[in-house]
């Protein structure tokens, strides 16, 4: 990893759909160098995938989301890892983090509606023997996602010329 790799990651994290030539121009690299570096970053597991940031509220009905906090009993030898792996296998869980503070895990759970999410938590997550407590926090509105503002915002205006 050098300064150019950092720059590449920054550019791709912001918008991974840009053409190679543009990325090469921005980083002052050749196109071949960009391709080689991106392949190396992918092979090294630093770039884990590419995705779009979707405003599901705007897309229409049928998507709900919640943050679910969990207190768990860590296991001898495995600590938190084994239970984390079990929870990760559910496709409803789109992110899972070990956190500090009152709770141990923070999950991001999505479903078609609130009922689906609460049913998933109460039927699939809560009954696991290592789980001591759950707290489900429903998302009511998303203002910002992956660094992108999702509400309409008026930008400041500039004069056409200024010295």
């Amino acid at each position: 990893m050098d300064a150019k790799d950092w720059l590449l990651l920054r550019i791709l994290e912001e918008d991974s759909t840009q053409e190679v030539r543009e990325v090469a121009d921005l980083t002052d690299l050749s196109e071949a160098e960009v391709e080689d570096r991106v392949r190396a970053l992918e092979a090294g597991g630093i770039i884990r995938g590419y995705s779009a940031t979707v405003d599901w509220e705007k897309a229409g009905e049928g998507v709900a989301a919640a943050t679910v906090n969990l207190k768990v009993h860590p296991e001898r030898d495995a600590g938190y890892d084994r239970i984390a792996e079990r929870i990760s296998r559910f496709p409803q869980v789109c992110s899972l983090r070990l956190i500090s503070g009152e709770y141990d895990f923070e999950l991001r759970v999505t479903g078609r509606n609130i009922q689906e999410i609460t049913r998933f938590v109460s039927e699939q997550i809560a009954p696991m023997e290592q789980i001591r407590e759950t707290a489900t926090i429903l998302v009511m509105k998303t203002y910002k996602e992956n660094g992108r503002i999702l509400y309409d915002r008026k930008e400041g205006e500039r004069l056409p010329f200024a010295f």
Partner: protein
Amino acid sequence: MRDFISQRTHRIPPSGIRRFFDIVQEMDDVISLGVGEPDYSTPWVACEAGIASVEQGQTSYTSNSGLPELRTEASRYLTRRFGIDYHPEDEMIVTTGASEALDIAIRAVTDPGDEILIADPSYVSYSPGVMLSDGVPVLVPCRMEDEFRLTPEALMEKITPKTKAVICNFPNNPSGGVMSRADYRAIADVICDHDLLLISDEIYTEMTYDGEMTSAVQADGLRERTILINGFSKSYAMTGWRVAYLCAPKEICEAVLKIHQYVMLSAPTMSQYAAVGALRNADQDREEMVTEYQMRRNLFVRGLNRVGLTCHLPRGAFYAFPSIKDFGLTDVEFAERLLKEQHVAVVPGSVFGPSGEGHLRCAYAVSREDLREAVNRIEAFITSL
């Protein structure tokens, strides 16, 4: 009725781009590379600090020289970023933008007939500023072959017994030229040998891309004979707040402060609080913006060269300054036709002085998308010639 306007005011030339302004007003799909200010909004931490000060009723004047905490933070910033030291108590003044700092600095040192050397091309206010003090602006050419740096040879050539001071601005608006430490050392010898004062406008220093960020004051011998100007408009995207600062040795600072207290009293209070917030908490925002400008510079300059507009690599500020000398048009004609035919607004280099002739100032502080489209339109224009 008699003419009430002073001869001095009559002598100041009108803005060189009034006409372009009028043309732009008639169009709705202009890509403007004519804007010499960041396209970012002020970092939110700085806005919060300004808003909080208003909510707390901090709406009075501050001390003439500015909020003590702002001078202290600015002094720390200069030490942190350049290794230079100024006493917040008696060597710094907070001003209403770098424009005011320039104005009062020039007025404090210029007597009628004094020759003030100005590194050319330059920001448009320097010559009128000197003329308003009945001084004589003398332009010192900076050439493309030297990447628009100020050389000791060029400086020497213009020095006369009447020369009092030198005004320079690096990283440079409009050329993007940058002075290295060695470059400053070289002019420092000339300035010291001829007992001149330096007014160094360093408003773009944070936008230095390919090497170490420098200040003139780092050069041996210059600190005691320099008025240093820096601020927040460019590095923290705070143009509309109108806040900057000036640093100088105590005796000079006292003289400048006399003018400041009569003409300005103090810089806007909420802006000073916002600037404190910027210096304390907006380093990351600033670094992000600078990284983005550097990427845009790479994108834009490569694009210009690809479509056949020769452009040296500007090492600082956010301006590209391509040469149009191969096209048989003056920079004014080129810029006017580019605007009318392809709706891309740039500023003719000659607006910034004779050394800018044959160049265009293109501010790349616009979105990457606009830069791409601007390059396409410029290509279409060149092809049509």
